[in-house]
C-alpha cells in the first residue's frame, strides 16, 4: 500500500501559530475597521479620486501586459539555450524583487530621464526626450520590476514540460513550429494568465513608483492618493474612503491572481534545470531577447552604481544616520517576520487554511494599514514618534505571504518525510522542533528572513506617511535628496541602500545555507 499518501501531523503546538495569525488578522482587519468607520465623513469620491482609480487600473493592465509580453521570448530563450552564466542570469532575475524601488527609479531616471542616456541618443536624431514622469515612467518602472518576475513564472511553465515530451517530439521530427504548437502553446495558455494576474495585482498596490515617477492629477494611483489626502490635505475621511477602495481593488486582484496561479510553485524550484531539446529555433531571436532583457535590467543598475560610487566618499552625515535607522528597522522587521511566520508555518501542517492570512496581507496594502494605525495613534501620541516601529511592523506583515510561501511547503516536506520516524521514536513537541524541523527548514527560514530584512530595508511606503521632517530611513532620505536635486548624494545613498538590502538578504540566506 502507498502508505505515504496519508498526512502525518506531528505534535506541534498550534496555539502559537493561531495566536500569530490572529494578531496579523487583527492588525489588518482592525485597521480596516478603523478606516471604514471614518470613511462616511468624506461623503463621496470626487472626480480626481475616480481618475486615480482609472489610472491605477490602466497602468496596472498595461504594465502586466508588457511584462508578460516581453517575458515570453526571454523565458523561451532561457529554457531552450544552454550557455555559460545561464544559472547566474536566472539568479539575477530574482534580484529586482529585493532591489529597493527608489534605487531602481534612480537608475531608470539616469537612463530614460530628461538628461538620461536614451534621451541624449534621441536628441542626436532630433527627437524629443521620453516623458519619463507620469504614465510612461510608472509603466517603465513596473515593467523593470515585473519583467523578471513574469519571466521566472513563465520559465517555470517551460521547466514543467517533461523532458520525455521533447524526446517524443524529436522522435516524431517536430520542427520548432510544431513544438511551439503542440507543447509550448498549451503550456503558455496555462502559465500566462497566472503571470499576468500576479503582475497586475502587484502593480495595483504600487506606491513608491507612483510617488517618485508619477504624481499630478494624471498619474496618481489610489495608494498615492491616500498618501496625499494625509500629507497635504490631512483629510482622514477621504483617505479612509480611498483606503476602502484600494482594499476592494487589491483584494479582488489578489484573489484573481491566487485563482489563476493555482498549482504554480513559489520561488521557482528547479529553474536551473534546462531540458535538452532537439528542435533548433532561432538562435538570433533568443540571443536578442536575452541581450535586450539584460540591457534593460542591468544598465540602470550600472548607472546608479557608477554614479553612486563616485559620491560614496562624501555622503552627508544625514545619510549615514538614515542608514543606521534603516538597519534598525530592517532588524526589527526581520525578527518580527521570523517570529510570525515560523509558528504560522508550523501550524499550517494541521490547519492548511491558516495560509490565507498571507492573502489578507496582500489585499490590505501597507498604506491602508498605515492609515488605520495613524488614526489609532493620533489621539494619544505623535505618529512621528511611532514612525519606525510602525514601519517595521507593517513591513514584517507585508513580508508574511512570501515567507509563508517558502516555509509552509518546507515544513510539510519535513513532516511527510520524518513525521512517522519522529513519532515512533517518541520525540516530544519541542524535541521535534529543535532536533528535526528547525535544522531541516533552516535554508528556507534564512531565505524568508532575508527577504523580510531586504524588503523592509528598501521600503518607501508607510514611513513616508508617518515620518516627520527630522529623522528618516534611508529610502526616505534618498527621496528627499532627489526632491532637493542633490542627485550625486542621492546616487551615493542609493548605492549604499542597494548594498544594505542585498547584504541583509545575503547574510540571512547564507546563515540558512550553512551546513545545509
Amino acid at each position, binding site marked *: *500500500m502507498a*502508505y505515504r*499518501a*496519508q498526512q*502525518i501531523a506531528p505534535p506541534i503546538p498550534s496555539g502559537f501559530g493561531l495566536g500569530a495569525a490572529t494578531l496579523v488578522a487583527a492588525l489588518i482587519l482592525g485597521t480596516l475597521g478603523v478606516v471604514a468607520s471614518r470613511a462616511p465623513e468624506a461623503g463621496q469620491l470626487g472626480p480626481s479620486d475616480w481618475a486615480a482609480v482609472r489610472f491605477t487600473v490602466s497602468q496596472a493592465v498595461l504594465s502586466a501586459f508588457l511584462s508578460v509580453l516581453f517575458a515570453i521570448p526571454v523565458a523561451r530563450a532561457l529554457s531552450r539555450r544552454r550557455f555559460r552564466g545561464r544559472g547566474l542570469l536566472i539568479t539575477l532575475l530574482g534580484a529586482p524583487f529585493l532591489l529597493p524601488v527608489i534605487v531602481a527609479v534612480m537608475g531608470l531616471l539616469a537612463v530614460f530621464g530628461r538628461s538620461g542616456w536614451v534621451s541624449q541618443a534621441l536628441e542626436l536624431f532630433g527627437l524629443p526626450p521620453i516623458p519619463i514622469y507620469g504614465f510612461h515612467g510608472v509603466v517603465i518602472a513596473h515593467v523593470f520590476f515585473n519583467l523578471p518576475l513574469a519571466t521566472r513564472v513563465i520559465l517555470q511553465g517551460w521547466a514543467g514540460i517533461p523532458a520525455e515530451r521533447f524526446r517524443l517530439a524529436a522522435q516524431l521530427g517536430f520542427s520548432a513550429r510544431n513544438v511551439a504548437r503542440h507543447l509550448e502553446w498549451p503550456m503558455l495558455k496555462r502559465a500566462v494568465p497566472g503571470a499576468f494576474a500576479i503582475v497586475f495585482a502587484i502593480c495595483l498596490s504600487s506606491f513608491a513608483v507612483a510617488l517618485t515617477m508619477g504624481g499630478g492629477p494624471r498619474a496618481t494611483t489610489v495608494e498615492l492618493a491616500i498618501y496625499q489626502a494625509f500629507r497635504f490635505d490631512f483629510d482622514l475621511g477621504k483617505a479612509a474612503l480611498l483606503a476602502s477602495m484600494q482594499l476592494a481593488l487589491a483584494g479582488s486582484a489578489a484573489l484573481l491572481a491566487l485563482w489563476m496561479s493555482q498549482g504554480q510553485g513559489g520561488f521557482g524550484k528547479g529553474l536551473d534545470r534546462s531540458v535538452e531539446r532537439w528542435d533548433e529555433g532561432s538562435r538570433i531571436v533568443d540571443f536578442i531577447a536575452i541581450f535586450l532583457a539584460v540591457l534593460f535590467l542591468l544598465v540602470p543598475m550600472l548607472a546608479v552604481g557608477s554614479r553612486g560610487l563616485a559620491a560614496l566618499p562624501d555622503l552627508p552625515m544625514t545619510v549615514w544616520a538614515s542608514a543606521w535607522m534603516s538597519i534598525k528597522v530592517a532588524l526589527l522587521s526581520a525578527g518580527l517576520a521570523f517570529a510570525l511566520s515560523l509558528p504560522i508555518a508550523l501550524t499550517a501542517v494541521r490547519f492548511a487554511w491558516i495560509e490565507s492570512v498571507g492573502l489578507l496581507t496582500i489585499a490590505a496594502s501597507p498604506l491602508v494599514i498605515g492609515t488605520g494605525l495613524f488614526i489609532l495613534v493620533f489621539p494619544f501620541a505623535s505618529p512621528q514618534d511611532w514612525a519606525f516601529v510602525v514601519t517595521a511592523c507593517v513591513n514584517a506583515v507585508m513580508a508574511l505571504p512570501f515567507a509563508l510561501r517558502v516555509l509552509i511547503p518546507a515544513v510539510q516536506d519535513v513532516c511527510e*518525510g*520524518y513525521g*512517522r*520516524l519522529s*513519532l*515512533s*521514536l*517518541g*520525540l*516530544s513537541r519541542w*524535541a521535534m522542533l529543535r*532536533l*528535526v524541523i528547525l*535544522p*531541516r527548514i533552516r535554508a528556507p527560514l534564512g531565505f524568508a528572513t532575508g527577504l523580510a530584512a531586504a524588503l523592509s530595508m528598501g521600503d518607501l511606503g508607510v514611513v513616508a506617511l508617518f515620518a516627520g521632517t527630522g529623522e528618516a530611513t534611508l529610502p526616505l532620505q534618498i527621496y528627499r535628496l532627489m526632491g532637493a536635486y542633490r542627485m550625486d548624494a542621492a546616487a551615493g545613498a542609493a548605492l549604499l541602500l542597494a548594498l544594505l538590502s542585498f547584504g541583509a538578504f545575503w547574510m540571512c540566506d547564507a546563515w540558512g545555507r550553512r*551546513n545545509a
Partner: protein
Amino acid sequence: MLGDGEMLEMKEIVLKQGTFEMRANLGLEPSARVAVIGPSGAGKSTLLMALAGFLTPVNGRVYWQGEEITGTTPNVRPFSVLFQDNNLFPHMTVAQNVGLGLRPSLLLSAEEIERVECALTSVGLDGMGARKPAELSGGQQSRAALARVMVQSKPMILLDEPFAALGPALKIEMLDLVARLCTDTGAGLLMVSHDPSDARRICESAILVAEGRAHAPVATDELLRNPPEALRVYLGQ
C-alpha cells in the same frame, strides 16, 4: 485460535484507507520471527503501520501481553520500526541518530554515549559515529538504523522492507544481522517482504496478506511449498 502464550493479538481488526479495506484476526507468539507476504497492494505495509500506531483501526482491538494498545501513541508501543526509507535524519550524525533511540531529547549521559558506541561497533560501524548519513553507503545506513533499533531494545521489531533498495548480497547481510540481533536480544520480528526467499531465510512463520485479509501465521516452508491460490498467482507458480 488465540492462545494464552501469545504476546501480540489483533482481534477483529478492520483497517480502512480510502476505498481500501482489510481485516486481521491473528496472534503472534513471543520472540517469533514472522514474515508478512502477499501481492503488492494487498495491505502488508498497512497492517504493519496499524500495529506501529500510525493508522487507527476502524474496528477491533490490539493487545500486547493482554493489555490493550489500540489507541496508544507509536512511541509507547513495544515496537521499534524501520520504514521503507527516511530511517535516518540526514542533518544529524550517525551517533545522534542512534542516540535518539535512547533519549529523544538527545541529552545523553556519558553511559548512554557509551551504549551508542557499543551498538555502532556491534553493527560494524565503529568509528563512524561522527559521520552524516550521506557519507555512508546504503548498507552502512541500514546498519546505522539497526544500531538504533538495538539501543531502543523494544520487545519486537517491525520492518517495512527497509532493505528493498539494497543489492541481493547486501540484503542477505542485513537480514542475517537482523536475525542475529533478534537472537541476541530475544526480540520478536515482524517483517514485510515481497521476496519469498527473505522470508525463508530468517522467518520460521509467515502471515499471508491477500484479498483483504491478513491470515494467521503458518510455517513459512509450508506456506511457500503449498501456496493458496492468491499467493500462487503472485509467486508466478
